[in-house]
């Protein structure tokens, strides 16, 4: 019986018994859809041409901070009300509109700094002539928008994601429904999903077979396929909790952190090079990657995990692990010869603000960098309020990673080494001194005078900002020192080299240390002022959260005389009940990585331009569950992957498929499990796994992609991605990547079919099969088992046998070389097959 028929038998009455889920209205839409509302095209015209023009040219005198002549131009109401000279415009009548007259320099001359471009005047006139469309015109939302600037209130714009997380209970379903789908009874997640499905007259798919389940689950939780032995063990495990035990085993596997760590690295735009011209590698960056993998394997609570990365140094300054964790703040690009030092510092802070906003809040904060967000209630000020939390950071490249207890021993040992090498080092310094002096002068002279002035100031006299800019500029001088050898005259160079050789003999005396990390600490207890660029009378912006959630500055207390405490304050707020975003965003991300699509499909945009949640109640329930369970992600993984929804088959009967597609073609309501292509790293790792070459050692300094280590341990160079990973849509590390964008291209086919790397995997697999199975027919079985984890179907076996026959020598069917070649070709075909690169 097809599920649809089953539903019909249950009767439509059941469906009406299911209460409708109320989807939160999206802000202002109700009002805007009234008959008088301006058309979308008009609003677009306004947003594209008029609002930016007003913001750029007029707001500074007729906006939130100043209202010259009593006129304010940032809401339609205030424009219509006008200033001392009367209404600024008469909609539909540009000829009667003062604003139009003024920009035409017809009487009044506005803006006074110079007439607008003809195009801009034309646009403004057109806008007035067509009735002065303004979003949410005359609506409550418009009035709220006008007051938002003065005093934002949580009710000003009802964006769903900013509403408090609802305390929802899993829905009660009719017993008859639960009898029809008993597997959907026990997991609360399923009750939400089933209810929504039935409301849309959809029905779930049956459970997938065991081989499909273990392959799906193993890839999902570890990024690798199961072995043939694991598959058959699971297939023959008749215990009722066989699946749950499998889940626990995989969640406990160290491979789990390697897979889910990669998801995190996508979000934080992890890379191990500077980007830009030099694209210098960052030899210590891997420590952060290992920290992520370790944390996820240990099931570190998410609130702790993120706090360590944003404020580890403030949390526990002596803890080496946290020095690595705040390396999160060091992941952005760096340009080694950027002489515009303040400009580069601004870029660095903007980058951190953008990434953190999307990562933690799921909002495109970047839009508010230059103007109030056009669609979401994010003020420009809010962007800088968020940035202010990071304003005091000072990068450190040499944060020691030794336990504090070991410090005295290391220092003592270093003193011995220093004593023994004092003369040698002094001699080297003497040789280098004139060159260093020249190099420093040369590097300094390339900066503009303001930057040179900072460098000339003693450290103690510098303001916090000057300390930051000075340190950033000094990197360019240090760069010259690091390359001083090239500047030395031959005799000096020879002497220096000889001395360095002698110095190297003392290496045994040097203390062994745990190395160093790219880290961050605050520049001091006082932060440099954060100001909105381009404001005429800049006022320092205090750190704070979105004004609409809390317009007051966030309470911050400095940590002694070393740190501002700002970042720690941010983290406290992020994980407080006052913030409805982070829990939702995090729960949604977990869901997305399991199902390929989030309950909110735009995982880093919970604003109005993002998608509304497909299951709002489930999202809130899951977010609360995450908090209740102490932000432990493995608990949520377990909850999701043990659901009946997750265990559904991908395939449906043709008639079910046609019916369901007509209702929900995108499968938003999860009436089957979505088929997905493996991610780039999974494809690479699975090929190494199948060929038996995978070196599963964990972590450590990165290796080239030519080595058979898991992809997460290979170099991520911003300007030179591995061609295989790049072809299969791995992110390049230039921006936060909330989801992969799977494409299907001929380039991929070429890389996998003709690329030397993939052929080498096939040959390795063929070699090992040959060794273990000789040249008999069982080689075919072995190849299928290794690549696909199953035996060939009879039809497939016959087809492959024909292939072998065709490929064998017509003169000598036992020609060894030809047979070897055919086997390698078979293996290569399997590694290229759809079944290999897709999971269902």
């Amino acid at each position: 019986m097809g599920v649809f028929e089953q539903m019909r038998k249950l009767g439509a009455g059941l469906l009406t018994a299911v209460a409708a889920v109320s989807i939160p209205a999206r802000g202002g839409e109700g009002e805007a859809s009234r008959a008088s509302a301006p058309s979308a095209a008009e609003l677009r015209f306004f947003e594209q041409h008029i609002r930016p023009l007003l913001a750029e040219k007029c707001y500074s005198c007729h906006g939130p901070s100043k209202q010259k002549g009593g006129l304010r131009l940032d809401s339609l109401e205030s424009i219509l009300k006008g200033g001392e000279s009367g209404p600024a415009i008469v909609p539909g009548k540009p000829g009667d509109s003062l604003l139009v007259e003024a920009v035409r320099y017809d009487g009044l001359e506005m803006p006074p700094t110079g007439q607008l471009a003809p195009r801009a005047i034309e646009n403004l006139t057109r806008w007035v002539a067509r009735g002065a469309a303004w979003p949410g015109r005359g609506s409550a939302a418009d009035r709220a928008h006008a007051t938002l600037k003065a005093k934002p209130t949580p009710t000003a714009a009802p964006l769903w994601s900013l509403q408090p997380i609802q305390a929802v209970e899993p829905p009660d379903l009719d017993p008859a429904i639960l009898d029809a789908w008993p597997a959907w009874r026990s997991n609360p997640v399923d009750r939400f999903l089933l209810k929504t499905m039935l409301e849309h007259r959809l029905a779930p798919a049956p459970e997938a077979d065991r081989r499909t389940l273990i392959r799906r689950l193993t890839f999902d939780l570890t990024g690798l396929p199961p072995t043939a032995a694991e598959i058959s063990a699971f297939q023959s495990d008749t215990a009722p909790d066989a699946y749950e035990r499998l889940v626990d085993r995989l969640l406990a596997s160290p491979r789990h952190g390697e897979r889910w760590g990669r998801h995190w690295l996508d979000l934080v735009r992890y890379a191990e090079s500077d980007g830009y011209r030099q694209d210098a590698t960052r030899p210590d960056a891997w420590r952060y990657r290992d920290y992520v993998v370790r944390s996820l394997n240990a099931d570190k609570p998410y609130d702790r995990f993120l706090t360590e990365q944003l404020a580890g140094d403030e949390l526990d300054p002596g803890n080496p692990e946290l020095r690595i964790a705040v390396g999160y703040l060091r992941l952005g690009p760096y340009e080694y010869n950027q002489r515009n030092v303040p400009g580069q510092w601004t870029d660095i802070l903007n980058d951190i603000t953008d990434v953190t906003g999307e990562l933690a809040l799921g909002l495109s904060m970047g839009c508010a960098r230059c103007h109030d967000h056009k669609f979401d209630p994010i003020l420009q000020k809010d962007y800088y309020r968020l940035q202010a939390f990071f304003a005091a950071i000072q990068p450190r490249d040499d944060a020691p990673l030794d336990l504090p207890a070991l410090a005295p021993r290391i220092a003592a040992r270093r003193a011995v080494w220093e004593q023994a090498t004092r003369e040698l080092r002094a001699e080297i310094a003497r040789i280098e001194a004139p060159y260093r002096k020249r190099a420093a002068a040369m590097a300094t002279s390339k900066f503009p005078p303001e930057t040179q002035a900072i460098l000339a100031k003693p450290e103690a006299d510098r303001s916090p900002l000057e300390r930051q800019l000075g340190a950033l500029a000094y990197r360019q001088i240090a760069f010259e020192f690091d390359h001083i050898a090239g500047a030395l005259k031959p005799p000096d160079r020879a002497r220096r080299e000889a001395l360095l050789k002698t110095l190297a003999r003392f290496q045994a005396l040097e203390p062994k240390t745990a190395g160093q990390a790219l880290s961050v600490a605050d520049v001091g207890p006082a932060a440099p002022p954060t100001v909105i660029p381009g404001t005429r009378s800049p006022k320092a912006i205090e750190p704070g959260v979105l004004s609409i959630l809390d317009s007051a500055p966030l309470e911050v207390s400095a940590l002694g005389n070393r740190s501002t405490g700002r970042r720690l304050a941010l983290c406290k707020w992020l994980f407080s009940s006052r913030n409805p975003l982070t829990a939702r965003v995090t729960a949604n991300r977990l869901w997305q990585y399991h199902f390929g699509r989030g309950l909110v499909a735009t995982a880093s945009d919970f604003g109005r331009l993002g998608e509304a949640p497909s299951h709002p109640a489930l999202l809130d329930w899951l977010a609360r569950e995450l908090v209740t369970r102490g932000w432990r992600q493995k608990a949520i993984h377990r909850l999701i992957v043990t659901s009946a929804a997750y265990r559904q088959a991908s395939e449906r009967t043709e008639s079910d498929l046609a019916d369901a597609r007509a209702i929900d073609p995108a499968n938003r309501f999860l009436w089957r499990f979505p088929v997905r292509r493996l991610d780039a790293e999974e494809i690479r790792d699975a090929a190494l796994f199948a060929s038996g070459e995978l070196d599963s050692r964990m972590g450590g300094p990165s290796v080239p992609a030519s080595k058979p280590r898991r992809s997460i341990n290979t170099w991520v160079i911003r300007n030179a991605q591995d061609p295989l990973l790049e072809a299969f849509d791995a992110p390049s590390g230039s921006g936060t990547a909330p989801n992969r964008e799977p494409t299907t291209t001929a380039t991929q086919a070429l890389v996998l079919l003709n690329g030397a790397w993939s052929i080498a995997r096939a040959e390795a697999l063929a070699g090992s099969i040959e060794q273990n199975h000789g040249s008999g027919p069982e080689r075919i079985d072995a190849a299928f088992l290794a690549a696909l984890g199953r035996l060939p179907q009879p039809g497939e076996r016959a087809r492959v046998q024909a292939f072998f026959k065709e490929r064998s020598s017509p003169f000598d069917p036992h020609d060894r070389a030809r047979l070897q070649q055919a086997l390698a070709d078979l293996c290569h075909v399997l590694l290229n097959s759809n079944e290999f690169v897709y999971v269902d």
Partner: protein
Amino acid sequence: MSLDDDQACAPGAPHRERVLNRRDWLMRAGGGFGALALTDLLALDAAAGSSTTAIAQPWRTPGTAKSVIFLFMEGGPSQIDTFDPKPELLKRAGQPIPPTVKRVITPMGEFYSPILPSRRRFAQHGQCGTWVSDWLPHIAKRVDDIAVIRSCFTNGINHVGGVCQMNTGSPLAGRPCLGSWVHYGLGTENQNLPGYVVMLDNPRATVAGGPRNWGAGFMPALHQGTRIQGGPEPIANLAPPRGIDRDRQRAKLDLLADLNQRHLESLPGESELDARIKSYELAFRMQAEAPEAVDLANESPATQRLYGLDQPATETTGRLCLLARRLVERGVRFVQVYCGAGSRWDAHTDIEGNHTKTCLAMDQPVAGLLADLKARGLLESTLVVWGGEFGRTPMSEKGNGRDHNPYGFTMWMAGGGAKPGIVVGRTDDFGLHAVENRLHVHDIHATILHLMGVDHAKLIYRHQGRPERPTQNEGQVCRDILA
């Protein structure tokens, strides 16, 4: 296709972020190098009875150019030694820039260095009388086809930022480049060749910032540029390695197709799986077709001479320019040729020695390209763009070189609807700041897109919920350049 899926999609946005609907996967699973043009996709939608978008393509305008050849002088050619003569510099040789000139940051801190006048001789050429220096005698003969823009400016003061910005509009990495936007908006006319091709005159060099300069940024990778080289394997991995002959490859592909077909039967209606099967077929076809496109053997000796293939100094760039013409003829939408790849134009010292070589290497090939396109009637539909990531300072560096100048520099356009024989804009008396009819990179991009029939403000790609545009909501078409 569901109505629901399109509701969140701004009208006019041709694309949604997630693979949610049929149009979307067609975009991503275009299979070939050429994604299906948006036009085709929308036509498919219309044919399928979709009520959502009909066939509206609000970003399309009646363009004049079908293809672009962007000749990228990487490293930053000097405007004051080529197209923008500044007699004032002669009078002030050896003096500092006067204090009335707005102070700027240059990467080597040369603002206060003495003025270095050009040692070139300038003359007016053609009917139009455009000034060109004696470094470019061949291009000088084509000025009646050229619109010189003397008032370009940009933001990136260093190479990586500058090259990135000239390609993507932003000095910071991560956005799609112009070629990707064009490919996204217009597709390509030859499914068996990449729609967006990039060539370097030195295959071992790295363009500042690397391959991300032709990357698709936040767009699907199929919109990225493809590196092409001459020779039997113009595209990476195009041919199987030595030892795998055509028959063996065919046998493998047949087996693969069979196994994939059986797999597809277990998951009926999975269009992505089907697209992947087709992508292998296409790869096999391209293997046959692409080498022909890049084979110059059939070009007449006269044509080869026109591009300077007979002289060692011009042979390399000549080949690439001739290849560019062949690709455009075959429907490739966007061709980028890096002349001086690896910042060869970057004359911090010895501008004379440096530019004598770099100008010589490209002058005749570029002039030959213009002449050849015109003779074949292709110039009308092919927009040729010439320029670097920035220009160079009038102030000297190390006595005889010039520092980077993003504040005012020259580019030019020819064909494809650009007005021939004109000079647009002006720099100050020193050639430092663009002062009249200033064209930011966004304006240049807007103008190129306009000529190609794309409204830069209406071409939208939705990324993380935001409507992204090629010119980042800025940029104005420079009407003076339009014929």
